[in-house]
């Protein structure tokens, strides 16, 4: 079942991401955030259920039939989420670079643990 | 000619972009042609800012011949490399580097040559030194360096020089 595969995929992405955001190095965190954002995007997407060959794009001169098309709302939400996720990745990257520059370490606390 | 250049700096590029637009739009309607013209025109002017070296495309026929040769070679070398990949371990041990001096100096010609080298599996452009005009290659099946040098120089370089110089 496609649903099962997709949900397992979401789970693994999320788990890997969470594992990484719990690590001590800033780079691990940003990679983790990327993975989590994949997982979350797919999760949102999955709320529209699994639809194959039904992109929410209307054929010319055919009235829209909700049953024949994938749910467009989750897709629209994911699009927004992707953009915001990108913005945040960029921002966090620069913050971690700044922190690395100023504190001399790439530890998430801005100082090496004793 | 210069007047045309002033309005339309890169006519070939213009045509290419227009073609690209029409292909993308999958349409030949007048509206799309008009729109494509505008877009392609804009694209050309963008290119002006980058100020690339002048092209010297001279012989379209030679270009067609080159394309034909490459097409055939691509096919052939795909088979060759495929058989090496799937063949015995021993067949995969003949790889090696080689160099050859090129007579071609036109950058566009070199670029095409690079594309050709890459497209034909089995040869890989590694480095070209414009000062000494030496091209270093990596060849997957380097049994006879001379033969590879011959193929490159005779099958491609000569045609490219015809086209660009």
């Amino acid at each position, binding site marked *: 079942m496609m649903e099962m595969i997709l949900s397992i995929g979401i789970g693994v992405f999320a788990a890997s991401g969470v594992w990484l*955001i719990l690590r001590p190095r800033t780079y691990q965190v940003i990679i983790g955030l990327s993975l989590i954002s994949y997982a979350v995007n797919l999760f949102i997407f999955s709320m529209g259920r699994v*639809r194959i060959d039904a992109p929410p794009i209307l054929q010319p001169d055919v009235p829209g039939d909700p049953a024949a098309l994938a749910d467009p709302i989750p897709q629209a939400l994911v699009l927004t989420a992707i953009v915001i996720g990108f913005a945040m990745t960029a921002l966090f990257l620069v913050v971690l670079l700044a922190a690395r520059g100023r504190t001399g370490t790439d530890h998430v606390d801005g100082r090496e643990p004793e | 000619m210069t007047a045309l250049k002033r309005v339309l700096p890169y006519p070939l590029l213009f045509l290419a972009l227009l073609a690209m637009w029409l292909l993308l739009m999958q349409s030949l309607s*007048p509206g799309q042609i008009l729109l494509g013209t505008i877009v392609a025109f804009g694209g050309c002017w963008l290119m002006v800012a980058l100020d690339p070296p002048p092209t010297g495309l001279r012989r379209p026929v030679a270009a067609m011949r080159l394309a034909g040769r490459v097409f055939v070679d691509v096919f052939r070398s795909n088979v060759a490399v495929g058989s090496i990949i799937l063949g015995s371990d021993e067949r995969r041990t003949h790889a090696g580097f080689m160099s050859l001096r090129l007579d071609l100096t036109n950058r566009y010609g070199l670029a095409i040559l690079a594309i050709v080298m890459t497209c034909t599996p089995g040869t890989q452009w590694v480095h070209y030194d414009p000062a000494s005009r030496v091209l270093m290659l990596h060849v997957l099946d380097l049994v006879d360096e001379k033969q590879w040098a011959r193929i490159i120089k005779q099958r491609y370089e000569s045609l490219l020089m015809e086209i660009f110089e």
Partner: protein
Amino acid sequence: MSDGTLLLVALVLPFLGSLLAGFLPTHARNAAAVLAGSVSLVGVAIIVWLYAAVADDGPVRLWLAWLPMLGLDFTLRLDGLAWLFAILIFGIGALVVLYARYYMSPEDPVPRFFSFLLAFMGSMVGVVVSGNMVQLVFFWELTSLFSFLLIGYWHHTTAARDGARMALIVTASGGLCLLVGVLLLGRIVGSYDVDQILASGDLLRDSSLYVPALVLILLGAFTKSAQFPFHFWLPHAMAAPTPVSAYLHSATMVKAGIFLLMRLWPVMAGTDAWFYIVVPAGLITLLLGAFAAIFQQDLKGLLAYSTISHLGLITLLLGLGSPLAAVAAIFHTLNHAIFKASLFMAAGIIDHETGTRDLRKLSGLYRYMPFTATLAMVAAAAMAGVPLLNGFISKEMFFAEAVADHTGSLLDDSLPYWATLAGVFSVTYSLRFILGVFFGPPPVGLPHRPHEPAHWMRFPIELLVLICLLIGIVPGLTVGPVLATAVQGLLNATAPYYSLALWHGFTLPLLMSFIALAGGVVLYAALRRYLDSGIEGPPVLRELKGQRIFEKVLVTLSWQWARAAEAALGTRRLQPQMRIVVGLAVVAALAPFLAGGAVGTGTLPGTPVAPAFALLWAVGIACALSAAYQAKYHRFAALVLVGGSGLVTVITFIWLSAPDLAVTQLLVEIVTTVLLLLGLRWLPKRIENVYPNRPPLKVLIRRYADFTIACSLGGLMAFLSYCLMTRPLPESVSRFFVERAYSEGGGRNIVNVILVDFRGFDTMGEIVVLCLAALTVFALLRRFRPAPESIESPEQQRIQNAYDEAAPDRRPGDTATDDMLIPRLIMHWLFPVIAVLAVYLFMRGHDLPGGGFAAGITLSIAFVVQYMASGTRWVEDHLRVLPLRWMGLGLLTSAATGVGSWWFGYPFLTSHFQYVELPFIGKMPTASALLFDLGVFLLVVGATVLILIALAHQSLRSSRAAQAAEGGE
């Protein structure tokens, strides 16, 4: 003006005066004093004027709506009890002002002093005239606040700071308890109004909440009135200027607690709980204070402990619960205020004129200041309870009440002995005060040569001592009516019979008085040697310093324990915080399942598996897991692996009918890769594994915990998404969009129509986020300071440049140029191609996958490709990109499109589209949404380019910095 209004004036006037005084210039000493004096005198006048009304017609009231819904209205209520306190507050206030005018040094910023004093006076009046208990608490806390400022007036000394802080903390905490107590009162009675509360005695005493309310209210009263065990703050409040002590610790601040006990006496007293809490507290305070007072070496310290002792006495009297005891309490309150104020002032004069208050240094002052000495002696005698002085009468009443039977308990029966003992002590410390200061050999080593003070400085004492005498000799004539009114106010009923006569015959109390007098003299004689030895504090209790204990407890509780608790309950590290956030999210999401029952998978038939899809996800999962594994030591690998996961996501979007998502995700993927790579250069070299063999157990446990958390969130998300995917879609708002995307939104790509029309507002917000991120990146990078070891150019470049330098015919950078020769050419020519693709994506977005965002990212990739091919300098010589302008224009375009609909009378962002007939082209749909999308496009280009380029510029800056450093050497 009605009586109520007059009362309001009396209350407001001090605050106004305070405000005014606050604005006087720093050394306007006379103006401030005149102001304060006038305010006090007007207060006295108003209160005196109101006496007739109070005595004849009962309480004077004023009611103003404040917070009626909470039962808190601004209510003033002046009954006999309040009247007595009010006259004390204003009267003694006036005298203190006069005294302070002379006491305070010209260098002191006196207006501030008077400002605080007036504000305190107002608060104190507020406490006594409040007709609403919450309002009383309101003013109660104000007295704490202003007394803090007064005690801390000389805040350049440690003693003043500590004393003020301690007083504030103790009394304000008491005030908080009082607030809760009053809230309980309100709950029981159903009102905070004093009249209603006074009318609900039985209801109150029968309530199950009576004891908690009582305890809380008593906490308030005891802290304020310095009852044991909260008495310790008072001696340290002596760090205040003497006028403050004379005011706060005779008539006002400490009497607020007494006032409260009296105010609630009719409804709360008389129970066992009351007796067994109040009486012991009063008794211990009485004895302890008196005993400690004997051994003080500081004149004001002695008076402070004596104050504590007298407050204990009053409390004890109130605790007894009999009306007569209450009469005695109120009378003693009055008397104590009078003689204690004069004594403080006298002590202040001594301090002022001699420069010290130390009893070890003071001696024989009588010959230098006989007049002051006489006054002080009279006042001290009143304190000691010598006949013909006011203290005597109230003390007699106290003794009588001590003898009388109240509960018949052991405590009750033993009271006469304790009372007598306290009398003995009070005689002793009074003697000590008189004999130690005014008699004996002439003083040696005083800072100043003593002399009589200015007459007007002495005047307040003269007046007060005169009152002591008058009350002491003719009590019935002088204080009788006032006392009667006050008693009526206190008891809230007709007063019992009591006599103010001096002579009641040979009674037990008289005997006790004589025993006290004689015993006091004997005790003083016996202690002479010990006292002269100069040891500070009483023999046994010397080591028991309230302040030290308080500070120690306070520091332990409020600092050390707080620090420890903060560290134990919180963390400043990121990892635990992340663990908690994720862990709690899992718990929160699972909680409904525990409560609401298990939820099975849905009924929707599953979609048949495509083997390639399964295989694809196997790859995706492997990528994610390896990324998680590699990110620490192989950053580059992790980046590539995340790219792999991203691509699997992209294919999934396509597979499951979401081409728009795929396009966008793909483009973002590319830009993100470049972005992270740009950052990678500034990260430190990864040192190798610190635990080459097996990590320590602690680390292992942490890793297992993290693993568990990670798996649980992953499992949760998998479970939830599976649950949802196997359930049929609910009837959703999507139908509306699907049906109208084309007819009303003018686009066939429903997702894009949602983005730019139905939910265009989201998109506007989303681009604002992108804009903000770019601005932040820009701002941060302007101040970017790379770590020292990453300033120099990367190893590859150094080697290649070194090679170029070594070769005679090459210049540094040639190698790079050679290597990039052909890629650069190709990448240049791709520039217009990618730009055309961007235009295409933009134009088709409304009908097919694409749109402003995708187009914007595409165009910015076109720029980035040029930067990669030719380097920052070259590109910026050839292309002028002003990303901030693009961003501004983009946002403005989107916003303006939205505003455009106002013109037609529609809400913001109402879209408008129609088919336009264009020459050659034919019918073209033109939607305002396209303009909106143009804004999105412009912003995305600007923001993305800004982010990437700002990062890229750091290399330039740091290479410049490195060159500068080299040049400098």
